[in-house]
C-alpha cells in the first residue's frame, strides 16, 4: 500500500492563492447572505473563479484546460470548505471528469472546452438515497438518431444553474452515461430539495420524455472503443473523485469549525474562568485537532496519488483506498467538530445566529454525499481484509 505524500511548489501556490481568495470573497456574512438565495452562490465570485481557471484545472490542455492533475483541486476544495464557499465548481469538475473518462475524442471536444470556460455542469447519479446502488431505474431507449430517457434523479447538485447534466441511465440492459443539456429538459423538470446544509443547492431532475441526440451517450457505453473505460468503471471513479472533493471540503470546514470553537473557548468566561481552561472542553477540542490532522494527511495523500496517475486512467486500488479513507475520516472529523461546536457554545450554540449551526449542518449533509463513512469503510474492508490469494 502506498504511503506517498508530496506537495509541489505549484500546489503550495494554488493553496495559498485559493485560501486568500476564499477568505476575501467568503467571510461569514457573505456566506449567510446566500443561505436563502436561489442559486446559493454569488455570481460575481463564480465568474472570478472561472477567470482564475479553476474549472479548467484538471481538464487536459487539448480540451481547453490547464492540464494539471486532479490532485490540484484538493487545495482549492479544502480552501472553499474552510470559507464555506459554495459554487458549482465541484459539480462542474465531476461532470468534466465523467466526459474525460467516458467520452470519445469528439465528445470531449464538444463539451470539455465549454466546462473549462465556465459553463456550469453537474452529474445526476442517484435515484433515491442509496449511494451503494448498482442499478438505476432511469432508462434510455434508442429511438432512431436520438435517445429517449425516463425516470427521476435525486440530489442533483447545482441542478438549478447547470447547463449540462451527465446522467446515469440504463441503456440496453447496461449502465450508460448520457449528457443532457438544459434545453432538452421539460418545463418543471427541476424541483429543488430543501437541504440541511443551506450553503448547498440540489434538486430532483425529471428525465421523463427527455430526448437527446444519440451522440450524447458517452462512448464508454458503446464498446466501439475498447480504450475507453466502461460506464460502470467511470461511475465508480466519479464516486471516488466526488468523495475526495467532499473530503477535502469537509477538512477545510473542520479547520474553520475548530477556529470558531477555539475563539469562543478563549473569550467566553463562566464561574470567573475562561471556559477553554476546563479540560472537559479543552480535551475534546484537541480531539477535533487530531481528527483534522488525520483527514488533512489523507486528502493530500490521495491528491498525491492522483497527480501521479494519468488523467483519464481508471483509478487504481491505492487511489481507491486513499479516497475512501479520506472521505470516512474527513466527515467523521467534521461531524464530531460540528457537534462539539454547538455544545460548547452553550445557549448561543442553540441559535441560528451562532456559526456553529453552519458547521453541524454542513457536517451532516457532507456525511451523506458520495457515501457516508460506513459506506466507505465497508468497501475498505473488502479491499483491505479480503485480499485475494
Amino acid at each position, binding site marked *: 500500500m502506498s504511503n506517498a505524500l*508530496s506537495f509541489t511548489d505549484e500546489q503550495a501556490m494554488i*493553496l495559498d492563492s485559493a485560501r486568500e481568495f476564499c477568505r476575501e470573497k467568503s467571510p461569514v456574512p457573505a456566506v449567510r447572505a446566500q443561505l436563502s438565495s436561489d442559486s446559493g452562490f454569488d455570481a460575481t465570485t463564480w465568474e472570478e473563479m472561472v477567470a482564475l481557471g479553476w474549472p479548467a484545472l484538471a481538464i487536459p490542455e487539448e480540451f481547453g484546460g490547464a492540464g494539471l492533475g486532479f490532485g490540484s483541486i484538493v487545495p482549492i476544495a479544502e480552501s472553499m470548505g474552510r470559507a464555506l464557499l459554495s459554487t458549482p465548481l465541484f459539480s462542474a469538475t465531476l461532470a468534466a471528469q465523467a466526459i474525460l473518462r467516458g467520452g470519445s475524442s469528439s465528445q470531449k471536444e464538444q463539451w470539455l472546452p465549454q466546462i473549462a470556460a465556465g459553463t456550469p455542469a453537474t452529474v445526476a447519479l442517484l435515484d433515491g438515497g442509496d449511494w451503494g446502488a448498482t442499478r438505476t431505474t432511469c432508462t434510455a431507449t434508442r429511438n432512431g438518431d436520438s435517445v429517449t430517457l425516463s425516470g427521476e434523479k435525486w440530489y442533483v447538485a447545482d441542478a438549478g444553474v447547470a447547463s449540462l447534466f451527465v446522467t446515469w441511465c440504463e441503456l440496453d440492459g447496461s449502465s450508460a452515461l448520457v449528457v443532457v443539456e438544459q434545453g432538452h429538459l421539460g418545463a418543471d423538470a427541476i424541483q429543488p430539495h430543501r437541504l440541511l446544509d443551506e450553503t448547498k443547492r440540489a434538486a430532483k431532475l425529471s428525465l421523463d420524455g427527455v430526448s437527446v441526440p444519440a451522440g450524447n451517450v458517452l462512448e464508454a457505453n458503446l464498446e466501439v472503443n475498447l480504450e475507453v473505460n466502461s460506464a460502470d468503471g467511470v461511475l465508480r471513479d466519479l464516486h471516488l473523485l466526488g468523495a475526495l472533493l467532499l473530503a477535502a471540503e469537509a477538512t477545510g470546514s473542520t479547520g474553520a469549525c475548530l477556529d470558531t470553537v477555539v475563539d469562543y473557548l478563549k473569550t467566553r468566561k463562566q464561574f470567573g474562568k475562561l471556559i*477553554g481552561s476546563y479540560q472537559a472542553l479543552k480535551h475534546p477540542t484537541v480531539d477535533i485537532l*487530531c481528527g483534522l490532522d488525520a483527514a488533512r494527511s489523507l486528502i*493530500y495523500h490521495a491528491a498525491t496519488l492522483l497527480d501521479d496517475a494519468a488523467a483519464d486512467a481508471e483509478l487504481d486500488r491505492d487511489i481507491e483506498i486513499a479516497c475512501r*479513507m479520506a472521505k470516512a475520516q474527513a466527515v467523521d472529523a467534521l461531524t464530531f467538530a460540528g457537534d462539539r461546536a454547538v455544545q460548547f457554545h452553550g445557549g448561543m450554540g442553540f441559535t441560528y445566529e451562532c456559526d456553529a449551526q453552519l458547521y453541524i449542518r454542513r457536517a451532516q449533509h457532507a456525511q451523506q454525499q458520495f457515501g457516508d463513512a460506513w459506506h466507505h469503510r465497508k468497501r475498505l*474492508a473488502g479491499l483491505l481484509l479480503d485480499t485475494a490469494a
Partner: protein
Amino acid sequence: MNSAVDAPSQRELDDFRSQVAAWLKDNKPADPGFLLPQTFMEVGSDQQLDFLREWQHKLWSAGYLGMAWPKEYGGQGVPAVFQVIADAEMRRAAVPIAFNVIGLGWAGPLILHRGSEEEKQKYLKNILSAEDIWCQGFSEPDHGSDLGNVQTRAVRDGDDYVVNGTKIWTTMGNYAKYMILLARTNPNAERKYDGLSFFLSPMQVDGIDPRPIQKLTGEYGFTETFFTDARIPASCLMGEEGEGWKIAMQTLQYERGAEAGAAGGLMQVRVVIDDVIECLKGVTRDGQPLLEDPVIRDELVKLMIEEKAQGLSNRRAGIPALTSDYPFSLNLSGKLRSSEYARRMRKFAVAAQGAHGGLYVEDADALDAGFWQRAYLNNFSTTIGGGTSQIQANIVGEHVLGLPK
C-alpha cells in the same frame, strides 16, 4: 565525530544493506520459548535479561551497534547513515530489541557529547557491549512529571556525596550498574532548577536499594529505588554542581529523539494492525470467520485508517506548506496520537478474540501466547509515562491551539 569521512556512495550503502540483511538472517535468535519484552521497560526476569544481553552483545560484536560512535569507545566510526540502514534491516527482520536503551540512547550520547575523556573511556564501550546496564533516576514518587521539583538530596562529604531520597519508575533498576541521577545539592538556590546536579552514579553501593515494582501484568521491569545515606564518589558528578537541570534537559532531547547521537538498535518491537489481523484469522464468531463479521470489520477498518493517517502525518509534518495552520500540531501531538492509537488497537485485539480473549500469558491455549493481553496492559506505560495523555492533551491545547491554562 568523524569530520574527515567522505560521504558513502549509494553502492556502498546498498552493499552494506545486503550484508546486514544476510547477517540478521543467519543470526536472528530462535524463539526462546518465553515471551520477550517488546520494550526495554518490560525486562522482568533473569531469563529475559540474559537473552537480551547476549543478543545485544552479538549485535555489537558484529559491528551493527554504535556504528557512528568513535572506534576508541567501542563504536565503528562510520557515518550515522549506516546505523540507520542497520536499524531498518533489524526492523524488517523483526529481531529482538537492543535493550540497554538508557545507556545506548540517553546516557551514552550525553557522555559522548559532554563527558570527560575518562568518562568516555570508562562507560561507552560497556554500554554498547551490554556489559553495563544503565538506568535513570529522574522521577520521584511525589513528582512524576515535575522534574524541577526533585527532592532527592546529595550532600558533599569529603570525597563523596551522601545521597538520600527515593526515585521511582527506575527501568531495570535492579539490573543496572549505573544510574543517571538527578539530585538536589543546594536546597537554598533561588531558582529550584539551580539547586540540581547530575551524577553518573554507581548502583552497587550500600544504601541504594532498588525494589522491583510488580506491574499490572504481574511482571516486573521497574524499581522504586531508595537511597539511604548512600555514599557515591564525588567524581560521579557530571559537570559542575548546579548544572543538573541543564544536563537533564539535554538528556531529554536524546530521549525524545530531538537530538542525534543514539547508538541505534531497536528500542521497541513495532506492532501494527496487520499483526492484529493475522492473530484474528482463525477466530470465529457466530460460526463464521470473525474477519467476515460486519461490525468487527468496521472497527478494524477504523483502526487501519488511523494507522495509515499516523504514517502519512509523519510525512506531512515535513511539508511546511501543509502545516501552516498549526505549525507544531503534528510534533506536539505525536506521543498522544501514537500511544492512544496503540492502546485502542491492542484493546481491540484482546476484545475481538471471543472467549480466548479471557486467557492470559502462559496459558497454552492463548492466541499468540497471550501477546495481546500483555501488550495491551503494558501499553499503559506509554499513555502514562513521559507525561500522561491527559497532560499531553493539555500541552497540545495550550501550546498548539492557544487555549488558556
